[in-house]
């Protein structure tokens, strides 16, 4: 899985590509923890190029959201579609996370 992190104003946009599963989630979690610890508390996770997510990936996103919230910040997920969207629906996570249609809307939402 590829993780690309960039700043858009005071918002950190984390773009994921590939698979967020039992194999890749631990590394993703660690990377995001580092980002939050470095002071990024407004995060948009862009899932446009994410092909696959399992419960391990959902847990990693949940950890991210909780950590951001604990720091008084805000996170949302952008471009959740296809198979990934269907996993969000099945798990009920679409009601737990704030899902937005684009990174631009996400930046406005958390910024």
């Amino acid at each position, binding site marked *: 899985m590829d993780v690309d992190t960039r700043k858009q104003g005071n918002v950190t946009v984390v773009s994921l590509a590939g698979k967020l*599963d039992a194999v890749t989630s631990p590394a993703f979690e660690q990377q995001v923890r580092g980002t939050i610890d470095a002071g990024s508390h407004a995060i948009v996770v862009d899932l446009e190029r994410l092909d696959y997510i*399992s*419960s*391990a990936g959902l847990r990693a996103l949940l950890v991210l959201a909780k950590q951001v919230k604990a720091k008084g910040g805000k996170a949302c997920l952008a471009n959740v579609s296809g198979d990934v969207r269907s996993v969000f629906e099945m*798990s009920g996570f679409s009601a737990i996370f704030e899902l937005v249609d684009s990174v631009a809307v996400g930046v406005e939402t958390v910024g």
Partner: protein
Amino acid sequence: MIKVEHLSKRFGELTVLRDINAEIARGEVVSIIGPSGCGKSTFLRCLNLLERPSGGSITIDGVDALAKGTDVPALRQKMNMVFQSFNLFSHLTVMENLTLAPIRLKGRGRQDAEREAMDLLKLVGLAEKANCFPDELSGGQRQRVAIARCLAMQPAVILFDEPTSALDPTMVREVLSVIRRLAREGMTMAIVTHEMDFARDVSNRVLYMDEGVIYEAGTPAEIFDAPRKPKTRAFINRTRSLNFQIRSADYDLYALEAAVATFAEKQLLPRQAQHHLQLLLEEVLQIYVPRLKSAVIDLSVSHSEKKDLLEVVLETPGMAGNLLAGDDLEDELGLTLIRNLTERIDFRVVEGAGRLELTVRK
């Protein structure tokens, strides 16, 4: 009428038939089915000694067919064969193909032989083709001529070796209808076929062969509606399987996924079914693997084309517990996904091993 005991056939190092035991009674129609290469055709060819068996016995009307001094040509006249590739003489007319053997081998007069040949051509619906050459006929017509030629020798038994395999689907029906008619008239027949509906319809008995043995035998209803043995069930339901053994918590998830993806593509599974299958496997293994310690998991993915069923089975030899029912899970997330990805979840204990069966929602 025909009794086969402990029949075996080897070609060099290759054993094609292992221990065949079968009986065919007068007037019986026996279909022989099974995967390609299982020995069906070899069995048939051994019956009329086109192949010499390596061991065992064949008794026809009480006479040992494998005894020294057996009149093989006479045996073949009694037990005539229809081949997949027709085997007609291309330089002879249809009429000449039918009358050649009765005149030469049975000493029949030409007029008698031709009159009977014409009756047989009427029987197979080809009287108007009597003066045609084989290459003027369609595949289905050629095979009907081959059947008529076989009947011209007034055999007691006809052996059919995949009589429709070389035919276009449109021509299969005309050949099968001729064989059906012979069955109605009480002809004794052994038919190697891949036409399952035909075998069900025409046979008194069905032999399912696999790996050189008669693996299961029964009435068409027994074999096609309620096969008892796993390989018969897999064949009848056109089931293909992928098996995988997981021996440690550090198993290679991506190697498993790649194998499953290849299997799913070969089975032409819809994209959503492929995704559901991959996700289900990961979720189940995420629950199972950490809790198994030193045990192994025998994992099988199977797809029944006929029943349109995609199933996953996990067996844990030496561990009888249902890990999906465990209350020590970190959360319900994996279980929630598993429930949404499946139409059926069934757990039971078979000979001390836990067996979890999941039917994938497609």
